[in-house]
């Protein structure tokens, strides 16, 4: 059975403006009256909001209650469809539904229900605070779930490792026609490049130096291209290699527009070799080279904003992602993959490290989520044509303390250090917003080349060398 897209309601973000209902009434009933909408937002006495809308049940009671075969669940989309021609207006479906998801529209004289507007719900588009969200995670299960995992089983990552999750998802999506560069770090450390003459992947993989990952990969890509083979050149590098000693060659490859997909797994340090600091380690963080004691109180410099530096290279595509937001991650992976066919694509994925950051392994995704929700990590994407765009709102973050408290590496922080971090985050947010604002002042993305109205990158025709 396939998974389905769904409209989610985040009551905490709802301000009760009612624009969703008006948008629905306009789209479905050519009316401005919220009474004609197929969803209803209601406030209780305490001012909390509830949503009434069809839940597109997996085992729909309305369908079983229909004597006229006028309701049926569409197996492909999951939407419960209503057939006006067959309906006899008996209203028995409204008896079957416990959620008032299908109800009589008195003005229309028949029942109405949400049909998700065929995949582009008007209510979601109208919801500025983001309380209504159209979740397309189902695509990951339905499409990516059927793809082959191109890493072997039994890699020896730490328990609860986020990096293993990232690389398995990435390679299964990027596919078998790929050559992987895995410079020193956790990726080869857990066995991805293999042991004793056997590789840990089912695709060609090699182990460059920290310093020459990008140029080696670029060279291989050029050879494949010259031979007329369509191969994706994929780097799975750590933040240390990319931001520190490998930065020069990364910068050069980006500047030359090499057609590679460079994915950086950012676990904020050299975790594989014993948790040393990197230039991506945040201010105040404990590492073995920024210890906590009488003299030292964790790292005394701020983290380098590597993805923003890559924007400075005007790469074909730059984005940040997190495994706590998989639908977003997959969308960006698709776009990066597409962009890498004609230029340099850079994807920066945050990877909380249970071992090096000191938190229970079962909390990994929660930590990843809190990092984003507190604005410690910002999710955005960039193309030269469309500029920089936040893919998740940075307004109304949760308090930073909710993120910091989860991690052993920040346990020692003084209020001054927390204030420093907060200041740094505020500057980060301001910088990204400046980029995004410059973008908003430009003509809308849909009118610019390379970006369709849905925001998807249109792949320019593959150029042949």
């Amino acid at each position, binding site marked *: 059975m396939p998974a389905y897209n769904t409209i989610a309601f985040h009551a905490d973000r709802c301000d009760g403006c009612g624009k969703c209902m008006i948008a629905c009434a306009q789209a479905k009933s050519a009316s401005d009256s919220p009474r004609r909408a197929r969803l209803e937002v209601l406030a209780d*006495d305490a001012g909390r909001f*509830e949503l*009434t809308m069809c839940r597109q049940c997996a085992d729909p009671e309305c369908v079983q209650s229909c004597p006229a075969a006028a309701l049926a669940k569409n197996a492909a989309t999951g939407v419960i469809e209503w057939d006006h021609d067959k309906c006899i207006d008996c*209203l*028995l479906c409204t*008896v079957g539904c*416990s959620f008032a998801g299908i109800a009589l529209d008195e003005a229309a004289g028949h029942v109405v229900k949400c049909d998700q507007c065929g995949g582009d719900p008007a209510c979601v588009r109208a919801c500025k605070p983001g309380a209504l969200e159209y979740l397309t995670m189902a695509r990951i299960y339905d499409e990516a779930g059927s793809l082959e995992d191109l890493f072997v089983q039994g890699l020896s990552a730490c328990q609860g490792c986020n990096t293993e999750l990232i690389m398995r998802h990435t390679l299964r999506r990027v596919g078998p026609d790929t050559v992987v560069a895995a410079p020193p770090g956790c990726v080869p450390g857990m066995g991805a490049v293999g042991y004793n003459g056997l590789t840990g992947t089912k695709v060609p993989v090699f182990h460059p130096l920290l310093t020459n990952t990008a140029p080696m990969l670029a060279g291989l890509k050029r050879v494949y291209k010259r031979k007329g083979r369509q191969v994706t050149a994929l780097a799975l590098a750590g933040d240390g290699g990319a931001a520190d000693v490998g930065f020069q060659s990364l910068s050069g490859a980006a500047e030359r527009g090499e057609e590679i997909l460079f994915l950086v797994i950012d676990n904020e340090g050299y975790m594989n070799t014993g948790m040393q600091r990197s230039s991506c380690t945040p201010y105040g963080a404990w590492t073995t080279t920024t210890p906590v004691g009488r003299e030292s109180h964790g790292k005394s410099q701020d983290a380098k904003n590597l993805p923003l530096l890559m924007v400075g290279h005007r790469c074909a595509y730059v984005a940040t992602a997190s495994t706590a937001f998989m639908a977003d991650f997959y969308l960006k992976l698709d776009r990066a993959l597409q962009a890498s066919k004609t230029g340099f694509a850079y994807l920066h994925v945050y990877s909380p490290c249970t071992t090096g950051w000191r938190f229970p392994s079962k909390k990994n995704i929660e930590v990843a989520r809190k990092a984003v929700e507190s604005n410690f990590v910002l999710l955005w994407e960039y193309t030269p044509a469309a500029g920089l765009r936040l893919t998740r709102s940075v307004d109304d973050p949760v308090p930073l303390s909710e993120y910091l408290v989860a991690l052993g590496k920040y346990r020692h922080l003084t209020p001054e250090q927390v204030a420093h971090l907060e200041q740094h985050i505020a500057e980060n947010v301001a910088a990204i917003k400046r980029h995004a604002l410059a973008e908003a002042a430009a003509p809308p993305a849909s009118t610019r080349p390379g970006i369709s109205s849905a925001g998807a990158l249109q792949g320019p025709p593959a150029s042949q060398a």
Partner: protein
Amino acid sequence: MEQTHYLIAGASHAALAAMHAIRLVDADGSLTVIGRDRELPYSPTLLPYVVSGRTDPQRAFLRDHEYFTRARAAYRCGHALVRIDPANRVAELDDGSRLRFDKLLLATGARPVIPPIPGLDAVPYHVLRTLEDALRLRAQLPQTRRAIVLGAGLVGMHAAENLSKGGARVTIVEQQQQVLPGYFDAQAARIIARAFERADVTIRTGARALAIEAAAGGVTLRLADGSAVSGDLLLISAGVTPVIDFLADTPIQCDRGVVVDATMQTSVERIWAAGDVAQAASFYGAHPVLNGILPNAVEQGRIAGMAMAGDRALEGFRGAVPLNTYSYYGQHAVSVGSGAAPPGAEVVESSDAESARYLKIILDEGRLHGIFAINTPIDPGVMWQMVRRRLDLSAVRDRFLAQPRTMGRLLMSSLLR
């Protein structure tokens, strides 16, 4: 002898809900559905629209053959169950074939009651329960100028409206003092009756039929008050009774219907009953009741299916709740729960004859006992849940009484988030 693990007698709402529930947990156990009608499964509720021509029955089947194939179930239509031997678990069909079953569901529904009115057996009359009935009635419609509908229950009212829309002058004859007794009180019934009268349908309530005679080109119905009603078409819609004739000589306990427990099992192990044929616990009283409505058939069918397949998520039947959604002449009436207010209950009623709006709410110890609405939007499914969960509404009483729909939606949305 042919064997089947699950045998379902009947192919309508209760039967299909049971089959669906079985297949959710047991994808492979052999399953056979037998239906007396020759067609694919259809709903009796649809039939008035077949009569009026609004519905093409060929497009309104509840399932297609492919459904049964995919579910790996045998659908045997055009066969009636005529006998069962519970001890040996053998069912006999009207073609003489015999089937051995492990588990049997009786979902044979109900058939029209033919009242013992002298002379009725000597005149032609119609009933409306099967597709055949509906097509016969439909064929008669063009020749019909004056129709008599005997009985103002749901079937009679639906049929009367559709006969009238088909061009006939219709008279409804009802023994009780109001139409739709059991679902609406007298005042609500009057509002509904008015819509019929406005459409030139004559309604004779409190009218007892004494005798029926053949008359030129039709029949004449003699009433207890001395008057008579004549027509060229007579529809008997005087209620229904469970189809249980094939249970004679079995130890399966029957009262008015097949008596079942909270899992829809009959008094005999491995045999269940659900829907119009079953007599199950009432939500409101100790005595088991018949509850011949579609939502009840679906719910009981599902419970029976879950019990038959050993589904551990099974929750027992909480008791039959009267439920009715009734659309007539573009108007809408809804009733959920019991209209019999217990002593001490709070009854809040408002109506407006002008707009034909009506609302009655009965609260018993702060809980919803019943709600009845005409042309007043409420969500019946939400109200049903509130009744059966015995939701305590004391804290929100005022708002609920003022805005039952809004409050109901709020409560259910937060409860079932």
